């Protein structure tokens, strides 16, 4: 694993991730103001959001349902739970506490499987409210330090969040990236959130420590302000190296919260980690416990769509590619796997359809404009040897540009006819004679020479020759 991360010696990183995701509800967690991003500041506020005296929170049923979807999608146990006040002083939280879940969260003990099958434990996924948004005036670059005042917008305050806490099972920056990517796909699939890191509806903090295998985990630091999957990888990598450098220089890692700076590619001290006690958690007296019934849990589970991992496995089974192959990953991410399977159902070749869809449907959504039957007809022409791969690509481009069509008619209009085997053999022999140099190198085993020979045949045939057939003929001639 060290080799993958590029960590020196036998050092290994140990990473746990805390992902906050904003739920796609119409209203806030405890009040009826709209949950909407990007509107004029302070236009979705109410007495509960502002913490006005006497205001009482009432839990949003849909937020609970979306949180349960997340829990079930991560194979968590849903349990009776309570809400706590997490007390701290900050103007983006006008009540001076955040309502969160503490020792009795809604979802516990789940897991998420990475595309390659690595299982990452999920400790908990609990409900809590988001904070308002501060803009710091005066300080350099909008930072807190040196600012002369802050402006607060409470539109986001009280927006429902689920915080998903992984176990420290992640061992590389790449695994962290895969975890967040897969988690995001699951959240979108179950309709819990749009999970956009760039808009802040999905935010990620990383707990990073280092150790040598066989020794206890080291002291961890929490990295905040990671705004993309790419920065997450960079921040984790940087932090692990920083800790290793400290330890190797005979110093020790201090437990603290650190801030990732995308600009200089470093983490900086934010604050020493406050003890859990300092938040003075206590049960929220204004809310009663939440205890979803078995029937409710069952109904939410029954309504869950097929998850990305299962969809990749299904597509892999149908096409023969690996479930974590790029084609399966990309096509399922675009939601086009049902379409590929429909091409198969329409009598087409699913493996070819998968490649075509991956290559040519990047701009199409989950419901491509080309009818599945039209793509099926194209793959049939290919498997029948009536079209070469190059010709099929051209026909496919026409199909995509026109939103469908008769593949055979397009092929005829383009003048594509299957080359006679005899004619192709003659052409190959002529190229061998003309390109004696390349032929000699090819016979000597130089891989590059093959490309030159195939290219010459393709040119001579005006692109009509089937590259695979040409390669096969060349190899046969070489003997």
């Amino acid at each position: 694993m060290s080799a993958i991360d590029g960590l020196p010696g036998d050092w290994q990183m140990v990473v746990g991730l805390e992902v906050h995701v904003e739920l796609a509800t119409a209203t806030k967690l405890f009040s009826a103001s709209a949950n909407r991003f990007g509107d004029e500041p302070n236009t979705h506020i109410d007495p509960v959001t502002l913490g006005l005296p006497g205001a009482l929170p009432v839990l949003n049923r849909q937020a609970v349902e979306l949180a349960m979807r997340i829990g079930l999608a991560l194979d968590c146990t849903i349990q009776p739970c309570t809400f706590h006040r997490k007390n701290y002083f900050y103007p983006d939280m006008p009540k001076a506490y955040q309502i969160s879940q503490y020792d009795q969260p809604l979802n516990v003990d789940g897991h998420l499987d990475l595309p390659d099958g690595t299982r990452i434990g999920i400790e908990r996924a609990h409900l809590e409210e988001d904070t308002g948004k501060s803009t710091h005036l005066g300080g350099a670059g909008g930072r807190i330090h040196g600012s002369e005042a802050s402006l607060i917008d409470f539109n986001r305050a009280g927006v429902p969040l689920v915080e998903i806490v992984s176990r420290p099972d992640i061992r590389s920056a790449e695994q962290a990236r895969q975890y967040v990517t897969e988690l995001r796909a699951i959240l979108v699939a179950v309709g819990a959130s749009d999970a956009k890191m760039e808009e802040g509806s999905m935010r990620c903090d990383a707990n990073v420590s280092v150790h040598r295998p066989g020794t206890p985990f080291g002291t961890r630091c929490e990295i905040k302000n990671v705004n993309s999957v790419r920065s997450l990888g960079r921040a984790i990598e940087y932090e692990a190296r920083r800790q290793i450098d400290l330890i190797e220089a005979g110093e020790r890692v201090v437990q603290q919260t650190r801030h990732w700076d995308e600009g200089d590619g470093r983490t900086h001290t934010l604050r020493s980690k406050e003890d859990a006690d300092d938040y003075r958690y206590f049960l929220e007296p204004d809310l009663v416990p939440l205890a979803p019934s078995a029937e409710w849990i069952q109904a939410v589970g029954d309504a869950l769509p097929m998850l990305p991992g299962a969809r990749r496995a299904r597509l892999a089974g149908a096409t023969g590619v690996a479930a974590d192959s790029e084609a399966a990953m990309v096509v399922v991410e675009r939601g086009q796997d049902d379409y590929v399977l429909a091409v198969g159902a329409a009598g087409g070749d699913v493996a070819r359809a998968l490649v075509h869809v991956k290559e040519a449907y990047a701009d199409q959504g989950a419901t491509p404009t080309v009818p599945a039957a039209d793509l099926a007809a194209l793959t049939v022409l290919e498997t029948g040897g009536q079209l070469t791969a190059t010709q099929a690509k051209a026909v496919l481009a026409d199909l995509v540009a026109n939103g469908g069509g008769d593949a055979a008619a397009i092929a005829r209009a383009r003048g594509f006819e299957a080359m006679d085997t005899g004619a192709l053999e003659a052409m190959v022999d002529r190229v061998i004679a003309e390109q004696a140099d390349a032929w000699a190198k090819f016979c000597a085993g130089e891989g590059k020479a093959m490309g030159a020979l195939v290219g010459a045949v393709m040119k001579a045939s005006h692109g009509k020759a089937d590259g695979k057939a040409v390669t096969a003929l060349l190899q046969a001639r070489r003997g």
Partner: protein
Amino acid sequence: MSERISEADVAKVARLARLHLTGEEVQRMTAQLGGMLEHFADVDALDLAEVEPMTQPYPLVNVLRDDVVAPSLDRAEVLAAAPSAEDGRFRVPPIIGLEG
């Protein structure tokens, strides 16, 4: 001087709440808060062996509301009640850390 809460406890909680208390105020608050906590001693005196631990006095769970939007408060009216506002937002003094 109460045994239930120390001056150090009061000073710590004040710091967390960004309240600047003088030594004399810490003493006074400690005595007053201690007095309040004394009332809980009445509960401690009861025999509660037969009572299930509870998080709420109400025998209720799942008090939920439908996810339906209600109008926001009027921004101008709300900001007019704030000590300071700017740009449609609440303006607050610089935010300092615990270290400050």
